[in-house]
């Protein structure tokens, strides 16, 4: 792992696809970049996805090379498992106060052999698989993780020393402390991405209470070939579902939960998952209950039509309530718009709540840039400067400025890098002029 410098041209906060792309595009223009990621691995949400719309490319095939490129770039340094505690403007640059969380593993010495993980006896539900798979109390986050370094989870560790005994490099350090760092950066790019609206947000849908009402991200992991199950199943009994329902806008366009906006990706990810369910289990029916199908991007409407051709059913309906049957099946009470608002009760054996997108990070008081009332970063000049925050020198990309799909996030990351590059040129010109001025006055 490269030694962290005291000063960078750009600090990119967030190591998901937008952050990595922004870092690469800024470094590509010759600037030195620090990429800071809160989780133990870069890759963000995308590295856990199965296939991506509308091309059905495997997500890892697009994301992992970006991860490798960012990690190995000669002008990019990587800091994972690190929180940003403060970004403040100090004359001419930004100072970032960082907290490097302890992995309880000496990063410089670890060779990523995985012996500690094998030796550990304690199984814990794996966050990467949304609890469906297991990991150990010391674990490499996942097969595609970068860096390939283990992290010890002190909440579940029994401190029996099994890992330390097998470590060939003797680099398990139970007493490792958090480390505080201060780094200066000429500019900052924030690409902190998204999390989903809580499963429990819509109480009437039973998310978090009913075993077979699941999150679309869990569906991604179930459908992934490197996922915990390798196929779609009902969490309650492991059976392959015969009738899957997608409840669209289950966390978007809904004032009652404070998310009045459209989350922009849910129609497409639901259609994509539905196509893949139909392909793997042709006997399984999939129904989307939707308000509008928002297939607006390049090739998206064509993708929607492909889903229909593959037998995915779409029903314009508002789901009012979901109840659980004793066998784990679910009954959806729906208002069928195309049938004049007739209310019907329809039984399915697996329900996916198409949760909306909310910001993963709300750095009020941490970053001087303003947030908008929707919780995402404010972009005061969105039409002409779509990557500029309210603070000159701080740029934003990806879902940090509102829900966005992967292509749009990547393009915006390029824009943020360009803005940062222009800004850095500008301040270096100003600095050069000031230096020249002071020389003149000194003479």
């Amino acid at each position, binding site marked *: 792992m490269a030694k962290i410098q005291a000063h960078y041209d750009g600090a990119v906060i967030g190591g998901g696809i937008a952050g990595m792309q922004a870092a690469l*595009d800024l470094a*590509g*223009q010759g600037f030195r970049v620090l990429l800071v990621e809160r989780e133990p691995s870069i890759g963000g949400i995308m590295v856990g996805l*199965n*296939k*991506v719309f509308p*091309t059905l490319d*495997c997500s*890892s*095939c*697009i994301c*992992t*090379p970006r*991860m*490798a490129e960012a*990690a190995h770039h000669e002008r990019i340094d990587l800091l994972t498992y690190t929180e940003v505690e403060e970004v403040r403007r100090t004359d001419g640059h930004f100072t970032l106060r960082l907290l490097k969380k302890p992995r309880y593993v000496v990063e410089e010495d670890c060779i990523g052999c995985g012996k500690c993980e094998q030796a550990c006896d304690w199984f814990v539900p794996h966050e990467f698989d949304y609890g469906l798979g297991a990991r150990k109390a010391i674990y490499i986050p996942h*097969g*595609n993780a*970068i860096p*390939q370094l283990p992290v010890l989870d002190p909440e579940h560790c029994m401190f029996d020393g099994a890992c330390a005994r097998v470590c060939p490099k003797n680099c398990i350090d139970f007493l490792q402390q958090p480390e505080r760092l201060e780094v200066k950066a000429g500019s900052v790019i924030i690409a902190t991405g998204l999390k989903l609206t809580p499963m429990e947000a819509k109480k009437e849908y039973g998310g978090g209470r009913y075993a077979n009402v699941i999150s679309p991200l869990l569906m991604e992991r179930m459908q*992934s*070939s*490197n996922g915990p199950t*390798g196929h779609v199943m009902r969490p309650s009994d492991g059976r392959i579902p015969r009738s899957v329902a997608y409840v669209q806008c289950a966390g978007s366009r809904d004032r009652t939960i404070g998310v*009045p*906006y*459209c989350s*922009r990706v849910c129609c497409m990810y639901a259609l994509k998952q539905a196509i893949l369910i139909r392909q793997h289990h042709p006997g399984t029916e999939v129904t989307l209950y939707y308000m509008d199908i*928002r*297939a*607006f*991007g*390049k*090739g*998206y*409407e*064509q993708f929607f*039509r492909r889903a229909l051709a593959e037998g995915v059913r779409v029903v314009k309906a508002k789901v009012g309530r979901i109840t659980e049957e004793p066998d784990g099946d679910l009954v959806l009470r729906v208002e069928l*718009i*195309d*049938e004049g608002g007739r209310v019907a009760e329809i039984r399915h054996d697996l329900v996916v709540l198409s949760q909306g997108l909310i910001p993963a990070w709300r750095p009020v008081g941490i970053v001087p840039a303003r947030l908008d009332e929707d919780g995402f970063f404010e972009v005061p000049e*969105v*039409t*002409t400067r*779509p*990557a500029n925050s309210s603070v000159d020198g701080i740029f934003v990309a990806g879902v940090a400025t*509102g*829900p966005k799909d992967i*292509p*749009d996030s990547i*393009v*915006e*990351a*390029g*824009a943020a890098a*360009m803005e940062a*590059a*222009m800004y850095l*040129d*500008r301040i270096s010109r100003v600095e050069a002029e000031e230096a020249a001025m002071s020389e003149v006055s000194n003479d």
Partner: protein
Amino acid sequence: MSGGNGNGSVRVGVFICHCGGNIADVVDVEAAAQAAARMPGVAFSSTHMFCCSDPGQAMIVQAIRDHGLNRVVVAACSPSLHEATFRRAAAHAGLNPFLCLHANIREQVSWVVRDRAQATRKAVRLIRAAVARSAHLAPLERRRLPIRPSVLVIGGGVAGLTAARDLASRGIEVTLIESSPFLGGRLAQLYRIYPTGQFARDVLNRLIREVAGHPKVKIYTNAQLWSSEGFIGDFRTTVRLIPRGVTEEPADLQAVLDACPEEAVDQFNLGLAKRKAIYRPYDGCYPPLPAIDWRTCTRCGACVEAAGGRGIQLDQEPEQIEIRSGAIVLAVGLDTYPLRHGEYGYGKFPEVITLAQLNRLLDPTGPTGGRVEIRGRPVRRVGFLHCVGSLQRKGVHPPMRDGRINEYCSRVCCTTTMHTAAELKSRFPELQVYDFHEHIRTYGRKHENYYDRVCEQGVVFIRFDPARPPRVESDPKGEWPLVVRTVDRLTSGEELEVPLDLLVLATGLVARDMKRLIDLYRCSVGPDRFLLEVHPKLRPVELASSGLFLAGSVQGPMDIAEATAAAAAAASKAAALVCAGSIELDPYVARVDETRCSGCRICLQACPFGAIARREETRQAVVNEALCMGCGTCAALCPCNAIQQCGFDDRQIGAELEALLAPEPELAAVSSQEAFDGKAQGR
């Protein structure tokens, strides 16, 4: 360049990728790896879940070192995706990267062959061919080409202007060419833009100020693409400059305009007004000088006389200039869907207009001074009809001229409609507004606010059945100019008759006629006729031809903010290229064997890049390696077999073909289930 090791006995490593399940679900990768292990020259074979991932690459590097491999064959996805990735890995292990070959067993096998045994056999056959070819590979060195530190931007709309501004502020020389006499493109024709509600003109004027005043930017209007030569690093584009006709601002412009006797349809105002043959689209346009529309002008000289004989020249000849640049940004934008006569009543009823036309009417500087009226009649009831020319269906909508229908969504019309309807309702609260739609796609940040607002403002939403789109007819009772007949799926398919004063068609967006551009730069075009990026996620603003970047809606429908972001992203890529000063190119050049060349000159004529010359003293062909693009035409045509193409020479291709065409490969039983243990078969 690092790496060598082309010599000595051949030791091939074969790495087969599961690609998640993309390959392994269909191809028995373990059986393939076992088969590969028995191929001649193979010293190691293995599989990996994701060869392209960091651990996957690390495995390749390790195997090269541990097993002394001097050839690498990776059987995975398409080389266009990851050939470079694996070559880097090989180089990392100290091997010349061109001793690494990539066999495509995803696009060419697992995605197209269903039967597991058959797919596995085909995969093994492709691997066998790559292994056979690899034995004849020789180390190659990449060429380094200088990059001219300047960029040509084609198109003077919001995307082109943004790209030019961004590149210039990084200190890069920019030439911007615009085919029309004025900058601004479609943004100039808009009134207010979402989601900020700014006046489009204000946004545009600021952008033009930033670009036009910049010392690094040179702007040519009335500039048409004529021809193009060269390649990445040194494009030479010839542009034909159509004379403007006006060289200095007339003292009394109004008198000059009044003097012109020729009128034409005002395209800027979308046919809602007329203008003279000498014209300015709007006050405050850039360049501010008027221009002459030569298709309308009869060269009668009335304007020259009115201008006192100064500043107007009717006999200027077009001029050609050559623009040299290291990279090119394409930002030529798009068009609105061309309505046929009578389509939804357009052209038949003057009360049927497009959304773009309504925007001109709403503009206080527009043809009606901001009044929304048709033939002088005020408007009481307005309808908006979505998806005109978008989301088309076979059998429902007649195809466009190229025989294709527009299946795609035009992305911006829903929010533009909501935004415009909100503007109408707030300016004319007594107006009744109806919205005929299939889906409302207000997807973007703050777009939904406009939808909410028009709902509060009392706009009535009617959801039509796309299989039976609304019909526009005259009112049989004669009380209203128009009646829209449709079913409403929101009220269980009720048949509705909606009388209207004005129907606004939210026409979709279509690709421009870009034939010349496409031919000159060999651009890829998608089935939707827009230019096609290399990959929507890996390289979203690049064309397959190196050095060409896509900015904005030349790629597909986008709103202003999206086009601006795309233009900045394109500028970022172009800046990275030209700032680097040079670029490495693949070493696939043609080489002439002087002992065989007879000097027949066939190759000289055949080379599309002018890369072959004849050395006078020996009268033999000689290849300019900086110009050679490695197309192989010369090698194929040479009657003496004197030209070989590096990386694709006769022995390599011959060995590959022989292995490809040899009898069915023998396989151990193909496992019926997916085997994911991923153990290596080293020896």
